[in-house]
């Protein structure tokens, strides 16, 4: 990949560009994708999928919070 190609973004995706990438778009890509190179620290705790599991739990709780807030507003 060349420098020029990556930065010739029509939508300003690159960090510091015109458009800020939404967190949900970012987590779509950073969770469960990417090379899994399990780290020592995580392995010593609970195994390779710990981060993913905890982040899924986090997102579930965010959804629940948002749903509660929506109900309260109605």
């Amino acid at each position, binding site marked *: 990949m060349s420098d020029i190609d990556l930065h010739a973004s029509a939508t300003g995706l690159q960090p510091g560009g015109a458009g800020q990438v939404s967190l949900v778009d970012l987590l779509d890509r950073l969770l469960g994708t990417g090379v899994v190179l*399990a780290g020592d620290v995580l392995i010593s705790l609970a195994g390779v999928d710990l981060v993913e599991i905890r982040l899924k739990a986090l997102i579930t709780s965010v959804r629940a919070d948002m749903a509660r807030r929506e109900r309260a507003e109605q």
Partner: protein
Amino acid sequence: MSGNARYVFAVARDLDVAELSGTHGFQGAAVEAVEHEKLAAVVCDVDLAEFGAEPLTRNLEDLAWVERVARTHNEVVWRVAAVSTCAPLRLVTVCADDESVRAKVDSLRAGLEDVLDRIEGRQEWSVKVLVAPRPAGETSPVAPATSGADYLRRKRQASDRRRDLSVEAEHIARDVHDLAHTHAVASRRLAPQDPRLTGRPETMVLNAAYLVEADEHEAFTAALHAAGEQHPSVTVEVEGPWPAYSFAVLE
């Protein structure tokens, strides 16, 4: 737990580490390369008081912390992808030291080479298809129902209309996916994002990633913009290029 460890952002090939000078990871730590034969793991120091196993379990429940780490991770991956062939690692990969990083890279070397071969000269594009909610007036009858049977009939008709619309949207999503796929070397469908997470009223019916040759991206985006114009009942969103996050998965 105290002391430092190494946070690994990505594994790169054909990386000249001098091109990353001035790139910072967490807490201002310089980004460095841990080289192993032809591969380089891109790392920075992190404090185990923040990234150790125990603090991590707390920090991963703090969305602001996750966002900060995700954005920093993404920024570094972008810098690396701009100057090399880059396989991004999953968020929060922490190794004890450089020796451990090298051992990990070595044990996965064949898979890493396959991943790098697959993504070299290619970029990831995101395509979403969204359906706007119908205005309330279109689905609710204007005149009051004249009888219980009339009410039930109208209710059934409204439900049929909603079903027809969602079937149509699914068809369009499949067509858009098929079209995008013909311009890509690989594709991956992700779960549609919940409106509560996007903060938008539309329903997402396609959320997919496509691996596209760097010199084919104009044809790819042009075909999808044309598809969007052909289907005014939906919005087709094309974003990119991304580093090849969705295609850097070790088999």
